[in-house]
C-alpha cells in the first residue's frame, strides 16, 4: 500500500510534464484527444494529492512520509531526485494539485488560440508545482520552480492581455533576479553545511552536528530572504505582481498567484529559517516591518484600484504580508498560521481570478466603474463572487480557513511584537473596504450605461457549468478545511512544533550581532524565552492547562 502511494507521488509530478511533452511534440491541433489527454494530466495530480492527504502519516524519525529516491547520475555532488511530504509541504501539495486541476479545467474550454500549446505549458506548470512541494532535495525544489516559472513567462507573453510584453519582460527580469539570488543562497547554504547531499534531511543532520557561523548565516539568509522575498512580492519588491497578473491569462494567473508564488515562502519556512536559525533571527524585525508595508501600504493601494484584476492582484500582495508576519514570529504558532493562510489564500485567489474572468466575459471590461447591477442577470455568479471575496478578506464563514490563518498569525505576532498586531489587524478593516466595494460596484445597484451598451443584443448568461465546476472544487476544499482545520493543522503542527518550538536557538541568537544595526535581543527572541520576559499570564496558563487535564 505504502509503495503505491510513493509511486503515485512520483507519478503526480511526472504525468503532467510527460503529457505536456506529448502535446507539444506530437501534433498541433487542439483535438478531442489532446483535450482528453490534458484533462487526465490535470485531474491525476489532483486525485493523487487528495489521496496522499488522506493517507498521510509521517515517519516520526524524519518527519516525512512517502519518501522515495531516484538516482540521477549526479550522486557525486549529492543531487538525487528525492521526493516526500511533511506537514508543511502537504497542504501546499494539495493546493497545487487542486488549484492546478481547477485552472487546467478552465483552460480546457477557454477560447485561446493555439490551445494545444497553451495546455501543454499549463501542464508543465502543474507538474512543476507538484514537484516543488514534493521535493525533499533542494536542487530539485529549485529546478521544479524553474519548470513552473518559465511557462508563466511564455503564457503571459503569448496569451496575455493588455501590456503583455512589458509585463512579461518585467516579470521575467524581476523573478529571474529573485530566483538567482535564492539559488546563490541555497548553494552557499549547501557548501557551508558540509553535507554531502542536497536533501533537506541530510542538510539538517549535518547542521545539527556543527552549525554555520553566525556571520555566514546572516549573509546566506539575506540572500534567501530577498531572493525568495522578491518571488513572493515582499514590499517594496512587489511591483511585478499586479502588473503581471493583470496581463496574465486567467489560468496562468490562478496558478501563479495561487500556488507558484508560495514557493518563496515555502522555501523560507521549510529550508531557510530552520537551517539558518541565527541568520533568520537577525533579519526578522526588518522582514516584519516590510511585511507591515505589504499589509498597510498595499492595502491602501488596493483600495485605490479601479481595475478588477489589478485589485485582485494587489489584494494577493497584501495577504502575503500576513504570511510573512507569521514567519517573522519564528514560533510554531506564527509559522503554522502562515502555512494555513498560504493554503487558504491560494484557493481564494485562484477562485477570484477565475470569477474575475467570468465577470469580464459578461461585462467586456475589467473597469469596476463601468460595472453595476450584474447580480440581476447573473445571481449565482454574484453569490460565488461575494463568497470568494468575503473569504479573501478573512470573514469566518466562507473564509473560515483564511480566518484560522490570520487569527493564528495575529496570536503569534502578539508574542513577537505587541504593537505590530494593531496595524496588522487594522488591515482586516482595509480589506473589508475594498472587498465590499468591489462586490457592490460589480453586482449591486443599478446597471451602468456602459454595461447596457456593452451587453446590448447579447444574452448575459449566469455562471456556466465549465466556470462553475472549477469554482465549486476550489470553494469546497476551502470550506472543508475551514470547518475541519485539524485535517491539515495537526500535520502542520507536528512538523513546525519541533522545527520552531524550541528555545535553544534563541539563546545563541541573543549573543550574535545581527545583520542590521540593532541587537538580536531586541529582535523578539528574548520574549519567547519563558524565563526572561514571559507574558504575564504564563504561570497562570500552566495552571489552567493542568486543571484541564484533571478535568478530562
Amino acid at each position, binding site marked *: 500500500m505504502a509503495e503505491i502511494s510513493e509511486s503515485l507521488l512520483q507519478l503526480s509530478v511526472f504525468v503532467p510534464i510527460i503529457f505536456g511533452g506529448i502535446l507539444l511534440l506530437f501534433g498541433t491541433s487542439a483535438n478531442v484527444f489532446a483535450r482528453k489527454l490534458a484533462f487526465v494530466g490535470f485531474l491525476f495530480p489532483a486525485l493523487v494529492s487528495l489521496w496522499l492527504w488522506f493517507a498521510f502519516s509521517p515517519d516520526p524519525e524524519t518527519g516525512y512520509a512517502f519518501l522515495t529516491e531516484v538516482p540521477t547520475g549526479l550522486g557525486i555532488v549529492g543531487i538525487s531526485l528525492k521526493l516526500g511530504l511533511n506537514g508543511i509541504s502537504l497542504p501546499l501539495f494539495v493546493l497545487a494539485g487542486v488549484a492546478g486541476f481547477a485552472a487546467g479545467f478552465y483552460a480546457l474550454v477557454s477560447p485561446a488560440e493555439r490551445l494545444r500549446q497553451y495546455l501543454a505549458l499549463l501542464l508543465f506548470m502543474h507538474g512543476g508545482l507538484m514537484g516543488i512541494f514534493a521535493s525533499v532535495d533542494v536542487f530539485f525544489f529549485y529546478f521544479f520552480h524553474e519548470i513552473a516559472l518559465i511557462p508563466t513567462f511564455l503564457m503571459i507573453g503569448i496569451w496575455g492581455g493588455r501590456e503583455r510584453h512589458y509585463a512579461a519582460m518585467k516579470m521575467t527580469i524581476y523573478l529571474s533576479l529573485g530566483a538567482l539570488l535564492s539559488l546563490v543562497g541555497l548553494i552557499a547554504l549547501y557548501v557551508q553545511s558540509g553535507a554531502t547531499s542536497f536533501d533537506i534531511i541530510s542538510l539538517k543532520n549535518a547542521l545539527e552536528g556543527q552549525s554555520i557561523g553566525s556571520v555566514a548565516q546572516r549573509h546566506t539568509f539575506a540572500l534567501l530572504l530577498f531572493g525568495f522575498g522578491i518571488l513572493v512580492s515582499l514590499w517594496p519588491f512587489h511591483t511585478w505582481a499586479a502588473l503581471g497578473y493583470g496581463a496574465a491569462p486567467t489560468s496562468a494567473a490562478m496558478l501563479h498567484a495561487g500556488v507558484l508564488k508560495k514557493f518563496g515562502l515555502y522555501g523560507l519556512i521549510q529550508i531557510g529559517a530552520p537551517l539558518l536559525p541565527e541568520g533568520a533571527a537577525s533579519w526578522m524585525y526588518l522582514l516584519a516591518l516590510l511585511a507591515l508595508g505589504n499589509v498597510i501600504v498595499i492595502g491602501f493601494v488596493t483600495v485605490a484600484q479601479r481595475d478588477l484584476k489589478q485589485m485582485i492582484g494587489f489584494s494577493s500582495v497584501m495577504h502575503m504580508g500576513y504570511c510573512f508576519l507569521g514567519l517573522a514570529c519564528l514560533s510554531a504558532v506564527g509559522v503554522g498560521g502562515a502555512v494555513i493562510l498560504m493554503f487558504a489564500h491560494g484557493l481564494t485567489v485562484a477562485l477570484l481570478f477565475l470569477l474575475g474572468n467570468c465577470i469580464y466575459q459578461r461585462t467586456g471590461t475589467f473597469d469596476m466603474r463601468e460595472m453595476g447591477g450584474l447580480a440581476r442577470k447573473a445571481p449565482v455568479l454574484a453569490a460565488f463572487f461575494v463568497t470568494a471575496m468575503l473569504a479573501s478578506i478573512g470573514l469566518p464563514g466562507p473564509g473560515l480557513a483564511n480566518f484560522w490563518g490570520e487569527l*493564528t498569525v495575529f496570536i503569534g505576532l502578539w508574542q513577537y511584537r505587541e504593537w505590530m498586531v494593531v496595524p496588522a489587524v487594522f488591515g482586516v478593516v482595509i480589506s473589508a473596504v475594498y472587498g465590499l466595494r468591489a462586490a457592490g460596484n460589480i453586482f449591486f445597484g443599478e446597471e451602468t450605461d456602459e454595461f447596457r451598451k456593452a451587453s446590448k443584443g447579447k444574452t448575459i448568461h449566469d455562471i456556466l457549468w465549465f466556470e462553475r465546476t472549477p469554482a465549486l472544487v476550489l470553494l469546497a476544499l476551502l470550506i472543508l478545511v475551514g470547518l475541519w482545520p485539524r485535517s491539515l493543522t495537526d500535520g502542520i503542527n507536528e512538523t513546525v512544533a519541533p522545527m520552531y518550538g524550541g528555545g535553544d536557538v534563541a539563546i545563541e541568537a541573543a549573543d550574535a550581532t545581527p545583520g542590521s544595526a540593532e541587537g538580536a535581543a531586541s529582535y523578539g527572541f528574548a520574549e519567547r524565552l519563558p524565563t526572561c520576559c514571559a507574558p504575564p499570564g*504564563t504561570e*497562570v496558563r500552566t495552571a489552567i492547562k493542568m486543571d484541564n487535564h484533571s478535568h478530562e
Partner: protein
Amino acid sequence: MSVEHLIVILLLVPFVSAGLIGAFLRRRGELAAAVSLAAAAVVLIGSLYLIFGNIREEFSYDWMTFGEYTVSMGFYFNDLAALLLFVVAVVGFLIHVFSLGYMKDDPGKARYFAGLSLFMFSMMGIVFANNLIMMFIFWELVGLSSFLLINHYYHKPSAAAAAKKAFIVNRLGDFGFLLGIIWSYWHFGTLNLFEMEALVGADPEILHVGIGLLLFCSALGKSGQIPLHVWLPDAMEGPTPVSALIHAATMVAAGIYLLCRIFFLIPPDAMAVIMWVGALTAVLGSLCAITQTDIKKILAYSTISQLGYMVAAFGLGALVLDGETGTAIQAGIGAAMFHLVTHGFFKALLFLGAGSVIHACHHEQSIYRMGGLRVTMPITFATFTIGVLALIGMPGLAGFFSKDAILYLAWANSKAVFVILALTALLTAFYMTRLWLTAFFGEAKSEAASDARENGWVMTGPLVILAIFSVLAGYEFMHPAIFHDIMMHVPHAEGGDFALVAGVSISVLVAGLVAAWLFYGAGARKDRLEQHRPAIHSFLARAFFFDDVYDWYVVKVQQRFSSLINFFDHIVISGLIVRGAAGIIGFVSLGIKSAQTGSLHGYVYWIFLGVVLMWLFVGFIL
C-alpha cells in the same frame, strides 16, 4: 441522544436549512420558506426543552492546535444564555411566520429565507459560545447574515450602500474586539469564559482596563453605540421583518449579551466609560428620532436609544464598589438583560406592526403619507398601541418594569445619568406619541393609505402573540426559577426610592405624551416642528452630523489617502527606483547588447542554456 448532541444538532438545524435552500431551492420560493420555517420550529421546540428542562451544560471540542495554542468549539449554556435563547427562538419563529405573509410575492423569497436561517444559526452560535474566538466567529457570521439581508433589494443603490456601510462599520468595531481577544489570550492564557472567570475570581488585580475597553468595542459596533451607530438607521433598507428580528430584537442586543457574558473581564474604570457611552447614545438616539418621517427610521433611532439604555444599565452596575464588587456588577446585568428581553418583545412588535402597515400601504414608509389606519387596520392598531405603551413605559406593561429597574440603578449610582435617562424617557414618550398620532389617526393622507386593509392572520397572529409578551414579560410570574441567576439581580426600588423613581418615570411619560399631543395633534399632515422651528428641526434631522463626518472621511480622507499611496507606489517604487535601476543597468550593459535579441523566445533559450551549463558544471567539472 445526549444533551450535548441536542445542543449541537439544534445549532446545526438552521445551518442545514440555509445550505439546502442555497444549494437546491433557489428557484423554489415556497418550498424554501417551508424548510426555513420548519427549521425555526425545530429550534423553538428544542430551545424550549433546553430552557425549561433546566438543562445547563458546558462542553467543548478541540478545533485546531498549534503548539500551546488551541482553539476549541465550545458550548456554555447557563441561565444568561437561556434567557437570550428564549428571545431568539420565540421572536425568530414568529418572524418566520410573519415573513410568509410579508414576503409572499417577493421574487427573492428563497434567498431571503436562506438568509433568515443563516441568521438563526449564527445568533444561536453567539448564545452558546463558551470562548471568545467562537464568539467572534459567530459575531462575524451574524454580521454576514445582516449584510445579506440588508442587501436583499440589491438593485437599489441605497440598499447596497447600506449593507456595505453596516458591514464596514461593524468591522471597525470588530477590529477592537479582535485586538481585545488576542490581548486577553496572552494576558489570561486562555479564552475560555469559565476559566477566565476563575482566574479573575482568584486575583481581581489581573484585570486590565485596556482589555475591557477593547472588548467593549464589539458592542460599540454591533449594538449601535455612539460613534458607531450610523449603520443602524441605514440598515432599515432591508425587509421589515429583518429589521424586527436582527436590527431590533436580537442581533443588536447581542452586544449587551456579550458584555453580560464577560462582565468579569471589565474593570470599574472601563465600566464608567461604558456607562457614559450608553447614556449619551440613549439621549442622542431619542433626539434624532424626533425629526424622522420614515416610520422605520423612527423605530431605528428608538432602538439605538434603548440599546444605549441597556449599555448604560450595564455600566451603572459597577459604580458601587465598596466591598461588594460582585453583587454591584450583577445588578447591572440583571437590569440590562431584563430590559433586553422586554425590549426584544415590544420592539419586534413595533417593527412588525410597522411592517404590517407598510405592507398594507404598498411599501409607503413616510408617516405623513399614512393616517387613518386606526379604523382600517384595527388589529395592527391595537397591537401597535400596546407596543408604543410598553416602549414609553406605561405602568403595568413590560417596559415600565425594566425601565424603572434601570432608572433606579441610575438613581442609586449616578444622579447625572439618572437625569439623562429620565430625559430620554421623556423624549421617547414624545416621539412615539408623534408617530402613533400621525400614522394611525386623522384621515388617510395618500391613496396607498386609504386603500390599506388589515393583513391576514399570518401577519396579525405574530403581532397578537408579541403583544401578549409585551404586556406580561415584566411580571415576576413570567420569570420562573429557570432564569433565577439573572432575574434575582434585577434591582427593585423600595420605599422612598420606589416612590421617587416611579413618580419621575410616570411624570416624564405623561409630560412627553401630552406635549406631543398638544404640539403635533392627531393626524397631522405636516411636521409642525419643521414648520415652526426649522432651525432645530434641520439640526436634529442631520442626526448630529455623524453621517456627514463619515462621508467626509470616506470621500475626502480615505479616498485621497489611498490615491496618494497608490501614486507613491506607482511613481516612486515602480517608476523611479525599479525603472531607474533598470536604466542604470541598461546603460552598463550597452556593451553586451548584441546578445539581446529582444525576443522572449531568445531569452528562454538563454535560460535553458544556463540551466544546462550549470548542470554540466555542477555534475562534471566541480
